[in-house]
């Protein structure tokens, strides 16, 4: 029996959901809607007595003060009605909580084929509305075909009794689950199977896989188990673990690097070992605060004598480019499972984001699957719901725009956790699986969603990426699971824990069983969302919110008791062994039986040619731009550029106060509207110790040389930490690479060799910077296929690649948060200092981009000078001398002095001739907009300036002006002693907020 409850806000109340649709319909498509109302619908597929239906309608789903509801379609008239519902198999979070509430109220449980499905319909009134316009709204704004379906009703089509006539979105597979043997009689056959099944096997791996199954000894052991050729479960398992996403084949590959100019020819055997592992292990010896790196789900560092902090960051690009909201919420909720699965499990205490998208005002011919504007809206909301509903503060984040990201937008998500150093007397970062331990799966159930998530992200996105690849994260289920697992941890019930991310059970169990050297898994025990999944689907599904835990049998009862108390589903699905075999069964029959060390068998490293053309060899020269006269206009134009202007509307949607440990917030200044250098948080509320966190993205410099892109990115991340009170003695790093495809192919990737060379140079820079500033890399990830094939006006498909991009996140420990500082000048009479040399380095700057130019003089980091200067600034901060401190970044001094003026709402009088600069940097414009690395702006009270200047003796630190309350203008005198800029705060603010000012 199917019933449907319709619920709407009372007519008199403001319908925020509907008015947001009206606003976007107007501003995005010029479609005028006079009025709109939203109706939420609950389709109940269960045999409930009418009396029970009426009871749940009143007591659960209708708020008498604000809502009207009915068991038949509400009589709200409209010209057109759009119904939106989820497609079968897509996680329906409100549907699940509705069932929980009804079960609790009525004291009955739902049968396996009963269920509740939520959907909504918009009632739209407007004379100018036509079916095609309403179709546009449904397709372009409301429903993404990958996860949603829609129906459109005109006034005439609407039947008052039947209403939207919603069918339950139940998955009915009517397929008897099983497994198949796959004949791979030749390499070509296996290559064809790889294409058909989307295994994304690299051609070099194929012969090695076949030899394994043809090995007589292996074949004999398999016959004992009733197996002959490989099964689909086994091939899928190999494909997952050999995918670039899990195996980082690129970073472990062999690069033949040649430099056209210097004739250098070097063979790089493994970028990972040489430029990430080796420096980090060397620094681990020097830095006793480094606890655990390079193996677990996240890196671990010492926070205080009783607690360690945990950090990791990753990207969730492929799914977010197809379904922005689903991809982003799954990304943030997914990365939160890494700290939950690090050591014996940490408690999340903060997260950050980085969005790189195309031009949101693009109206050219290319048709990306999602317009950058809609993609950004979806990604923002996904990280908002995923972060806020997890109860984790999002304390820091950046959004960048560049046409290249229309090919593939990037969604970086970073997560930090805190955990006691010891649990039951044992180090909390150590864990292992032992024979006899039970394999438990906790959290969500398994469905078809997310199958081939990793292999798809290992391919450059094109039309054959399977649609079922995206899932919806469920932060509510995960928050319950985290509460439950932390309690288990503290009772010592957890022997080993890891998350089910890419590759699902095949990765989590496959990797954890390596330690015990074997496992037996009973796939029929795995709880499913709907019946009918084949074995391989259960084994590789990436359904969300699941952890894999090793539990000693003697602790099982307590573990299950806590699981039911926390309303979390946990199931025993197998046990760890030491047979050296990965053994999977279904209803007693063996469907997989392979050696644990199958994947260490001599799979050949991938090989790449890398050919470096220096910028000059590529025709890059400095542009010829005669000195502009209107500096006021220039500064306001720079402040209004998308990559510089205020994006407060994004940060304000993120809870950055939950857990009560906020010290330096994402937005600072008198009006709380200027992005801070870094965030500082107290993860342990009983003390004054803080953790500073910064993050930097400077992809534009890759247009000239990825080596300097990397050094500048790391240098800025370090300066951001020092600017809030961080310490050079404790800086941890997280590197996230996003690179276009580097495998050369004459037709599909002719510049592959150049992009491969850029990768080698970026890795060399990573090591140089980390060794110079002594930064062990606590975690890192790579996403190597940030290309898109966009449909053009004539049915052609044009390849659009993102810039070679690295997000570098950095952490530092602040011993006493009372000594932290913010970038807003605080008092009139304070002196303004610039620390660090300004040189003629406008290459790939925001200033040159204003004129559509790139240039050649990319900023170059001077590590030796930086190390000394940053320690001096750190010392001054420790003595609480500066009243404000700010790291100079994108846009140069002109932009960042303007930001500080707005932050302090005080006048700043600056003399450019006093700025410490290279001898050849004489022009006002270069001093204002050069993006030289290594610089700070500080304000110091008059009575402290003598001591401060003594501390900085011999360093490139000069007083360039004063703070005043005589006016609130940024007044800049140029090299010729003439006043070249005079901008009051309100003019600066008007430019700074113009692009996105009306967004909330």
């Amino acid at each position, binding site marked *: 029996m199917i019933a449907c409850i319709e619920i709407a806000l009372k007519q008199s109340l403001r319908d*925020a959901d509907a008015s947001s649709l009206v606003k976007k319909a107007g501003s995005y498509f010029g479609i005028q809607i006079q009025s709109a109302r939203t109706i939420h619908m609950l389709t109940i597929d269960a045999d409930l007595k009418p009396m029970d239906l009426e009871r749940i309608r009143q007591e659960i789903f209708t708020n*008498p003060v604000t809502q009207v509801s009915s068991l038949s379609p509400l009589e709200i008239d409209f010209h057109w009605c759009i119904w939106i519902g989820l497609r079968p198999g897509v996680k329906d979070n409100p549907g699940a909580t509705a069932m929980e509430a009804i079960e609790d109220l009525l004291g009955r449980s739902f049968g396996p084929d009963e269920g509740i499905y939520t959907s909504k319909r918009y009632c739209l009134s407007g004379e100018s509305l036509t079916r095609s316009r309403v179709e546009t709204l449904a397709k372009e704004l409301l429903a993404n075909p990958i996860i949603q379906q829609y129906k459109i009703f005109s006034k005439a089509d609407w039947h008052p009794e039947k209403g939207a006539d919603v069918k339950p979105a139940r998955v009915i597979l009517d397929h008897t689950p099983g497994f198949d043997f796959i004949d791979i009689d030749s390499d070509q056959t296996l290559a064809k199977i790889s294409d058909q099944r989307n295994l994304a096997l690299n051609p070099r791996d194929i012969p090695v896989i076949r030899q394994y199954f043809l090995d007589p000894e292996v074949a004999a052991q398999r016959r004992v188990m009733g197996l002959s050729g490989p099964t689909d479960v086994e091939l899928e398992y190999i494909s997952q673990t050999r995918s670039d996403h899990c195996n980082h084949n690129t970073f472990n590959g062999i690069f033949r690097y040649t430099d056209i100019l210097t004739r250098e020819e070097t063979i790089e055997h493994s970028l990972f070992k040489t430029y990430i592992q080796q420096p980090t292990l060397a620094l681990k010896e020097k830095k006793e605060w480094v606890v655990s790196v390079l193996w677990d789900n996240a890196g671990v560092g010492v926070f205080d004598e009783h607690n360690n902090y945990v950090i990791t960051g990753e990207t969730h690009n492929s799914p977010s480019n197809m379904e922005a909201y689903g991809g982003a919420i799954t990304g943030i909720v997914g990365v939160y499972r890494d700290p939950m699965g690090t050591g014996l499990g940490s408690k999340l205490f903060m997260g950050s984001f980085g969005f790189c998208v195309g031009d949101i005002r693009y109206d050219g011919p290319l048709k990306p699957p999602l317009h950058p504007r809609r993609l950004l809206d979806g990604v923002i909301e996904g990280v908002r719901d995923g972060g806020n509903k997890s109860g984790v503060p999002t304390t820091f984040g950046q959004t960048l725009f560049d046409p290249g990201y229309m090919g593939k937008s990037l969604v970086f998500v970073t997560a930090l956790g805190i955990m006691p150093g010891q649990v039951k007397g044992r180090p909390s970062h150590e864990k292992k699986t032992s024979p006899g331990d039970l394999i438990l799966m906790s959290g969500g159930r398994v469905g078809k969603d997310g199958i081939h998530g990793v292999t798809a992200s290992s391919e450059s996105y094109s039309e054959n990426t399977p649609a079922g690849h995206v899932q919806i994260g469920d932060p509510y289920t995960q*928050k319950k699971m985290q509460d439950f697992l932390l309690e288990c941890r503290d009772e010592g019930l957890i022997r080993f824990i890891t998350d089910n991310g890419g590759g699902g059970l095949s990765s989590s169990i496959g990797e954890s069983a390596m330690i015990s050297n074997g496992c037996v898994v009973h796939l029929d025990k795995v709880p499913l969302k709907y019946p009918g999944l084949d074995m391989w689907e259960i084994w590789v599904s990436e359904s969300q919110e699941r952890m894999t835990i090793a539990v000693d049998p003697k602790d099982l009862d307590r573990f299950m008791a806590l699981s039911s108390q926390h309303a979390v589903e946990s199931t025993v699905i197998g046990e760890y062994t030491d047979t050296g075999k990965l053994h999977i069964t279904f209803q007693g029959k063996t469907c997989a039986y392979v050696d644990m060390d199958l994947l260490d068998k001599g799979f050949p490293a991938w090989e790449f040619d890398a050919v470096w053309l220096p910028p000059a060899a590529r025709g890059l020269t400095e542009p010829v731009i005669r000195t502009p006269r209107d500096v006021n206009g220039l500064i306001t134009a720079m402040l209004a550029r998308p990559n510089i202007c205020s994006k407060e509307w994004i940060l304000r949607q993120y809870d950055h106060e939950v857990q009560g440990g906020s010290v330096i917030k994402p937005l600072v200044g008198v009006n709380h509207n200027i992005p801070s250098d870094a965030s500082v948080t107290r993860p342990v509320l009983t003390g004054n110790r803080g953790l500073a966190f910064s993050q930097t993205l400077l992809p534009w410099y890759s247009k000239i040389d990825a080596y300097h892109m990397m050094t500048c990115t790391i240098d800025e991340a370090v300066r951001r930490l020092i600017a809030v009170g961080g310490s050079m003695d404790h800086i941890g790093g997280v590197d996230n690479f996003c690179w276009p495809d580097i495998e050369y192919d004459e037709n599909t990737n002719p510049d592959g060799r150049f992009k491969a060379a850029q990768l080698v140079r970026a890795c060399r820079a990573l090591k140089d910077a980390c060794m110079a500033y002594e930064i062990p890399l606590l975690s890192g990830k790579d996403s190597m296929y940030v290309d898109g094939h966009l449909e053009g006006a004539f049915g052609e498909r044009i390849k659009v690649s993102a810039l070679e991009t690295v997000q570098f996140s950095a952490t530092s420990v602040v011993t006493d948060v009372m000594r932290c500082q913010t970038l807003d000048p605080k008092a009139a009479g304070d002196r303004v200092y610039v620390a660090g040399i300004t040189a003629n380095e406008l290459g790939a700057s925001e200033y040159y981009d204003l004129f559509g130019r790139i240039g050649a003089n990319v900023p170059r980091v001077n590590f030796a000078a930086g190390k000394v200067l940053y320690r001096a600034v750190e010392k001054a901060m420790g003595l609480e001398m500066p009243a404000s401190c700010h790291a100079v970044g994108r846009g140069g001094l002109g932009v960042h002095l303007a930001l500080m003026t707005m932050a302090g709402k005080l006048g700043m009088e600056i003399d450019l001739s006093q700025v410490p600069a290279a001898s050849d940097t004489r022009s006002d414009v270069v001093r204002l907009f050069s993006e030289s690395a290594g610089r700070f702006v500080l304000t110091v009270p008059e009575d402290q300036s003598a001591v401060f200047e003594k501390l900085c003796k011999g360093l490139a630190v000069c007083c360039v002006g004063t703070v005043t309350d005589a006016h609130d203008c940024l007044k800049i005198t140029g090299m010729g002693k003439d006043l070249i800029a005079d901008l009051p705060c309100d003019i600066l603010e008007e430019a700074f907020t113009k692009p996105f000012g009306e967004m909330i």
Partner: protein
Amino acid sequence: MTQVKALILTGFGLNCDHETALAFELAGAEPHRVHINSLVAGTVKLADFHILAFGGGFSWGDDHGAGVIQAVKLKNHIGKDLLAFVDAGKLIIGICNGFQALVNLGLLPGLDNDYTRRCVAITYNDCGNFRDQWVHLAANSTSPCVFARGIDKADFPVRHGEGKFIADPDVLASLLTGNQVVFQYADKTGNPANGAFPFNPNGSIHDIAGICDPTGNIFGLMPHPEAYNHVTNHPDWTRKKQQRKSRGPSFDPDETLGIRLFRNGVDSVRARFF
């Protein structure tokens, strides 16, 4: 001297329990984080406590209305215990999601001492989005609210998507005459915001940010006092530190207004029950 015992609800998506427990501890009480299912199963008795805290969070993911399912579950299983707790003159504080649960349970506004009638609601923000900011609050000195005693103005953070307080005109009139409006959103000068965004972040009628019941023992508010548990929580703390430093005295962090609000509750319980 036996301890004032505070019960802080946890589980099902609630997420401010740790800092709320800390706030009670700093305020002199003995905090206990208790899972909702422990109360439902009876392994923990509500009667053993003096203060009950409905903390912030997204109980049941805010699905079907913030605080709705939490209210249904608690009313269904411990409805009577809650009413007994109120009758015993004990204190209840509901913060953000907790305030939403209290109004859905009917424990607020408690007009004519009827603690079951649902007559006010907290619905979607007018700005149409979730919003995190600090707000200025003007306090009503004549309100009987125990927690807000002696506080004339305060700054706390708000973080919600459904924070707009609404009620029918007659209910609003009763609240005003009964002095049950405790906090109003204010502008920088401390005067009520009169609906001006962003000082009033959600469009609440009469700028209402928090109300109490006629006895003053039950208090609900959207801002988070527990998130002002340390001087460095305040958005302008670096500016205040610099101003004080320039005037000489070292910047010793005295108790924040957030903790003071909790201390008012703990002290009144100690005076009343011990």
